[in-house]
């Protein structure tokens, strides 16, 4: 879309664009280019010289069982976070759409976790599940569960999934509620007159009409789980125990900043970049379609 009536000249718009372009160039394009460059090079042990090594860093990366495992961990983590954040979000939105009294109150309270940083969500959940002092951990022990996420990789994974998903329920709730409220009531009434039960109305009318929202949210949630959950991992498990919760974003930070493996970390950055580009492309293709429907 373009405007018909515009102003003339190029100097003024150039000045207006300058600040953003400058920041973009210095802090986005330059580092991204450096990451790509670094990913095809290797530095010697003393950092004195670098040699071009082509795909070697990438080959080494994918030959590394830890990296491949990190991929699998990230995939599982992201899908689990997305599903665990979407399902309650949908359930609560459907319920909030049905009530009249108190609707505004429920909505306000359910929005609160959105304001909380993932890192802080991690701290709150870690405190509940801390093996020695956690309230929920005490309850689990009372039920006979051997709870110690510091030693058990699967428990650690469960905990970071819970913490990461908890915060995201608000967001999904809000979008599902907006989606529900845009469904024309006449459609539901017509099917009710035809004798469809509420359950049937939900699955045959509401759910299909929410499909675009659900798909959009699925992508957003996966992007969130991939890139915004560093704070959860760093606070709760530090990738452990025994790398059981080492997601890609944590590994790129750990290998680069703690392990000082610049080439390997840069190659990981490039892989992550490819993933973001893929996910963004999916999101935008889909949004184009949604605009078309509307």
């Amino acid at each position: 879309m373009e405007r018909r009536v515009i102003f003339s000249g190029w100097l003024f718009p150039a000045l207006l664009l300058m600040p953003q372009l400058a920041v973009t160039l210095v802090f986005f394009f330059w580092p991204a280019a450096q990451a790509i460059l670094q990913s095809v090079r290797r530095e010697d042990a003393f950092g004195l010289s670098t040699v071009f090594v082509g795909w070697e860093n990438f080959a080494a990366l994918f030959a590394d069982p830890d990296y491949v495992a990190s991929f699998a961990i990230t995939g599982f983590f992201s899908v689990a976070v997305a599903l665990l954040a979407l399902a309650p979000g949908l359930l609560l939105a459907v319920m909030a759409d049905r009530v009249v009294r108190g609707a505004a109150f429920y909505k306000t309270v359910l929005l609160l976790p959105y304001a909380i940083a993932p890192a802080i969500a991690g701290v709150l959940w870690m405190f509940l599940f801390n093996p020695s002092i956690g309230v929920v951990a005490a309850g689990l022990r009372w039920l006979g569960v051997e709870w110690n996420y510091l030693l058990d990789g699967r428990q650690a994974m469960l905990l970071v999934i819970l913490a990461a998903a908890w915060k995201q329920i608000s967001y999904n709730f809000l979008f599902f509620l907006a989606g529900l409220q845009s469904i024309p009531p006449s459609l539901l009434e017509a099917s009710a007159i035809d004798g469809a039960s509420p359950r049937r109305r939900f699955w045959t009318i509401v759910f299909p009409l929410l499909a675009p929202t659900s798909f959009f949210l699925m992508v957003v949630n996966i992007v969130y789980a991939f890139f915004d959950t560093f704070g959860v991992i760093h606070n709760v498990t530090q990738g452990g125990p025994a790398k059981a919760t080492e997601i890609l974003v944590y590994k790129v930070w750990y290998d680069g900043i703690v392990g000082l493996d610049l080439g390997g970390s840069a190659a990981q950055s490039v892989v992550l970049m490819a993933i973001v580009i893929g996910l963004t492309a999916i999101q935008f293709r889909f949004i184009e379609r949604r605009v078309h429907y509307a």
Partner: protein
Amino acid sequence: MVTARRSAWVPHAILIVGLLLVLFPIYVAFVASSHPLADILEAPMTLLPGSRLIANFGEALDAGTVKTSGQPVAAMLFNSLVMALAIAAGKIAISLPSAYAVVFFRFPLRRLCFWAIFVTLMLPVEVRIIPTYKIVADLSLIDSYGGLTLPLIASATATLLFRQFFLTIPDELVEAAKIDGAGPWRFLIDTVIPLSRTNIAALFVILFIYGWNQYLWPLLVTNTPSMTTIVIGIRQMIGNGDTRTEWHIVMATTLLAVLPPVAVVLLMQRWFVKGLVEAEK
């Protein structure tokens, strides 16, 4: 209405259970922040509030914890506030003019400029950590507010949002301004910015929360205790979670850290919802 529900209590019951589950972690943090440390370490901890709420908050604000070498949380709050305000204001200040330029002018390389801004959507900090860190170090911006905020300030989302809104401004308005002899600068100041007020407010709420909640970047670029933001400070207070962790202060600090963004969401809920929904279009 045929679709009228038979029983209204089922949705209420589910919502209340959902509400309690969502609020439970925050409630436990609140309880912990109102007890002396000994009560928390005595597992299982009580779930009833104690009497040391104000004392613990005061201690956190003034003296922090031993693990963070007594850095007062009040100073961390200040750093977080500066960072969040600078990111939110900075993003708006550079996105609005660039969207205006792209929408209201035709100049060479206009499309290229737009795409250059657009693709930053695909370069989150997480994927360009080390080279960005290196640049900030080269510019000697480590441990400064500039280093904390500048690399996060370019925003494709805000530019796209303003662009979308500017495209809906009627042509007649532009023509009228031109007839009145207003140039592009006058039109921007007198018409476009006032019209964008609600968009700016909505965006500001979202961006403030985004800035306040930053984690990875502040972790990298701040080393001195006096530059620590509150979200990072909590991490340092916990350390490796051993018995020396002062959980009562940690939980008081956690509540202090969530209070400002939660207050913003509560007080500006209308703009917040609008901003969230529109930013994703």
